[in-house]
C-alpha cells in the first residue's frame, strides 16, 4: 500500500536545520492495520503528514498505492489525497457550521461525484457508523465519540484505500475510545488499510503490527527488517557550522 524508503524531512531556518524524519523507512501492505508509536516529538505526526500528503519531504522515496509521490504538484497531491486517503483526526475536525450530512459531503464534493451518488455514499457511511438518524444534526449536538464516528464516516465515504488516524481516541473517554477502536477494527476487517499514530501502548497493541519511532527514525527494525536504515545518525538536530 505504501512504501517509504530513506525518507528525510528537514526543517531549515537560516541558523539551524532540524531533522524531523531521518532515514525513515517503512512498508505497509494492503489490508494491514499498523500502529505507529513513539514519544512526543519523535516525528509521528510528521510521518503522518507526509504519509497523508499534507506535507512534502526533503529526501528519499515514497510510493503510495503504486504512485511515486515525489515531485507531484499541489493539485495532483490534493487529488491523490482525496481519492486514496481518508483522515481521522484527534480533535475530529468536523466543520461546526455544517450538519452531519454536509460534513460527510465535503470530500465527496471535491471528488466531483454527482448529487445522487454523494447522497447514497453519505447515507451508507453514516449508517455504517450508526448515525444515519442524525444526519441533520450539527456536530455540537453530538458527544465526542459520536463526532469521531462522523469523522470516520467522512473518511470512509470516498472509499479510500488507506485510512490515516491521528490519535483517534486521544480526546475520548475509555468507553467511547473502545467503541471507536472496534469500529476501526471492523473497517480494517472489511479490507481498508489503516495506519494509526498513537502514543497509547494499549491502543497500539490492538493493531496487527507496531512501528516504533524515536528521533525521527524507525527503531523497531524487527518490524521492518528489510528496510533497516543504511546509516544511522546519533542526533536528530545538527547545527550548521
Amino acid at each position, binding site marked *: 500500500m505504501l512504501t517509504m524508503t530513506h525518507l528525510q524531512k528537514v526543517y531549515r531556518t537560516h541558523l539551524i536545520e532540524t531533522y524531523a524524519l531521518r532515514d525513515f523507512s517503512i512498508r505497509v501492505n494492503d489490508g494491514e492495520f499498523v500502529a505507529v508509536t513513539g514519544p512526543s516529538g519523535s516525528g509521528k505526526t510528521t510521518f503522518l503528514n507526509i504519509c497523508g500528503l*499534507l506535507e512534502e519531504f526533503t529526501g528519499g522515496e515514497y510510493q503510495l498505492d503504486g504512485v511515486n509521490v515525489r515531485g507531484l504538484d499541489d493539485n495532483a497531491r490534493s487529488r491523490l489525497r482525496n481519492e486514496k486517503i481518508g483522515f481521522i483526526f484527534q480533535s475530529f*475536525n468536523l*466543520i461546526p457550521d455544517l450538519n452531519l450530512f454536509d460534513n460527510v459531503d465535503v*470530500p465527496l464534493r*471535491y471528488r466531483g461525484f454527482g448529487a445522487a451518488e454523494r447522497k447514497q455514499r453519505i447515507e451508507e457511511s453514516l449508517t455504517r457508523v450508526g448515525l444515519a438518524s442524525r444526519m441533520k444534526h450539527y456536530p455540537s449536538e453530538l458527544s465526542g465519540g459520536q463526532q469521531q464516528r462522523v469523522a470516520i464516516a467522512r473518511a470512509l465515504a470516498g472509499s479510500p484505500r488507506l485510512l490515516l488516524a491521528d490519535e483517534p481516541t486521544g480526546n475520548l473517554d475509555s468507553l467511547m475510545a473502545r467503541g471507536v477502536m472496534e469500529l476501526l477494527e471492523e473497517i480494517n476487517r472489511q479490507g481498508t488499510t489503516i495506519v494509526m499514530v498513537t502514543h497509547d501502548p494499549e491502543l497500539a497493541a490492538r493493531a496487527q503490527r507496531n512501528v516504533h519511532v524515536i528521533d525521527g527514525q524507525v527503531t523497531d527494525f524487527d518490524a521492518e527488517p528489510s528496510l533497516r536504515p543504511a546509516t544511522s545518525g546519533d542526533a536528530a538536530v545538527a547545527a550548521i557550522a
Partner: protein
Amino acid sequence: MEIRPILSALMRSKVSMILIGLQVALTLAIVCNALFIIGQRLDRMQRPSGMNETDTFWLGSYGFGANYDAKAQQQADLVALRSMPGVVAATSTNSVPMSGGGWGEGLSLQPGQKNSTAQTTLYITGTQGLDAFGFKLVEGRDFRPEEFTFVKFGDQPHPQSIIVSKALADKLFPDSSAIGKQVYSEDKPTTIVGVIERAQQPWMDSDSIEYSTLLPMYMPYGNSTRYLVRAEPGRRDEVMKAVEQKLVEANPSRIVGKVKSIADIRRDAYAEDRAMAIILGAVIIALLAITALGIVGMASFWVAQRTKQIGTRRALGATKADILRYFQTENFIITTLGLIAGGVLAYAFSLWLMHAYQSPRLPWYYVPVGFIALWLLGQLAVLGPAMRASRVPPAVATRNV
C-alpha cells in the same frame, strides 16, 4: 458550486452576513440614486445657452450726476466699443442667458386672451444683437436699423417686430412657420420677423427655459446700461481688460464695472450643480471604499477564524483553487442577498425622491449595472483574504493547538 452548504453555514452566523448584506444594500441604493442625480446635474450643466460663450463678456455702466445723459452715452459707448481692436460686435442688453436676472412676459395668440400661450424672457437688445450674442438665425431676418426704438425705463415695451427662439416659435405656431405671424403682449400686437435656433432664458430653473424673445430697443435703466461684447476668437481676455479703461476715459462721470465673461456666468450659474455632483461623487467613493473595506475585514476575520477548517478541507482533498472559490462563492452569496435588498431599496429611495423633490424616476438599468459593479467590487475585495486562505497548508489539520 457549493452554494447550498455555504448558504446553510452562513445561516448559522447570521449577524456578520446581515451586517455586510445591509452595507451592500445601502451602498447599492445610495450609489444608484446618487449616480442618477449626478447624471442629471451633468446633463443640466451641458445644456447649451444658444449663444457664443467663449468669446463674449458683459459689463455695466452706472452714470451719476444731474447732467448724465444715459441715452446719448449708450450710443456713444456702443460706437466706442465697436471701434476697439479685437471687438467683433457689441450691443446693449438688459440680460444674458444664465445670468439669473431678466424680464419675463406672456405672449398670446389673440388680444384679450385670458391666459397667455407662452411665457418668454425679453432680451432688449440694440443693433448687432444677433452677432454679439452669437444667436443663429434659422428663419426670417435680423432686425432692420429702422425698427430700433428708444424706450424710457419703466414704460411697457411694445415693438413692431420681434425675433423668437425656435422652441418658442414651435410652441406658438406648432403647425406652421412663425414668420410674419402676429402675437400679443399686453394686448398689443407685434410681428415675428425672425427665428433663432436657441436662446436660453436667464433663469436656470425655468420651466420654459428655451422660450426667449429679442426686442429691437434701447432702454437704459435710469443711468445704467449693460453691454454685451463679442471679441475675436482668442482675444476675449485682452479686450475685457481694455474695455473698462476705454469707457471710463470716454466719460469719467460713471462707474464701469461688473465685467464678466459669459464663461464665468455659466460657471457661477452651475456652481451649485457642480458642488452637488462633487459631493455626491465623494459620497459614492467613500461608500464603495467602506463597503470594500468591510468585506476585506470580514473575510480576513473569517479566514483567521477558520484556519483549521481550511486546513481540514485541504486535507480532505480541496485544491488551492477550491479554497479560493469557496470564499469567492461565500462573498457572492452575501453580496447577492444584499443586492436583492438593495435593489428594492434603490427603487423605494427613487420613489421617495420623486414624491418629495419631483425628481424623475430612476431608470431601470441603474440597478442591474449597480449589481454588476458591486459583485465585481465584492469579488475584488475578497480576493486578498481568499488567496491568503488558499495558502493555508493542509498540515494545519493535524495541529492540535
